[in-house]
């Protein structure tokens, strides 16, 4: 059962452009995350949102910002992309049983 939907799946852009990734969850749970997965598969937490309130804001560059319009959506905006931002960005939802449900990811390539 798919509970977390991410768009777009793939995006190529140039250095300095702005990019947004969308995430929608359908289970109604309160806590959502954004993770960055690099080329070596390393998963690094970027943001945690609990019912629209930022809980954990890791030391990510200021050009990254989470945006939430309601409980079901948590988007990720990158104001001015840099080459090191090339990665897969994974949105996740935390269930009441502490399970994380991940989306399929949004792959960003910065040229």
């Amino acid at each position, binding site marked *: 059962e798919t509970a977390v939907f991410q768009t777009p799946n793939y995006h190529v852009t140039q250095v300095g452009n702005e990019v947004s990734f969308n995430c929608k969850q359908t289970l109604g749970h309160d*806590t959502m995350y954004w993770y960055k997965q690099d080329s070596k598969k390393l998963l690094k937490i970027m943001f945690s949102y609990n019912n629209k309130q930022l809980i954990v804001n890791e030391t990510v560059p200021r050009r990254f910002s989470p945006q939430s319009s309601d409980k079901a959506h948590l988007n990720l905006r990158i104001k001015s992309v840099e080459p090191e931002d090339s990665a897969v960005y994974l949105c996740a939802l935390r269930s009441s049983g502490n399970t994380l449900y991940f989306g399929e*990811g949004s792959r960003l390539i910065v040229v």
Partner: protein
Amino acid sequence: QQQVRQSPQSLTVWEGETAILNCSYEDSTFNYFPWYQQFPGEGPALLISISSVSDKKEDGRFTIFFNKREKKLSLHITDSQPGDSATYFCAADTNAYKVIFGKGTHLHVLP
């Protein structure tokens, strides 16, 4: 600071053998340890998990062994199948909205 360590980085076994994936952690406040399985092009998905009050958790061919005193755990995959080829992440959770992942073990099961 890496708080969750996994070894080996890559593991190759023959079909039918038992694969053993290792994990260790540093922070004593971690009390829940999920293992996630990730196939190429997909997000990680929960495979099996254990809480710190247990020393063993079994689910079919997958078993977690947990040593709280040494802060170590391992995932055993018996009768490995080619379909088990994936990246396996050990994670640590404190129920405080922050889930820390290890770097993953890439498992290859040869037919």
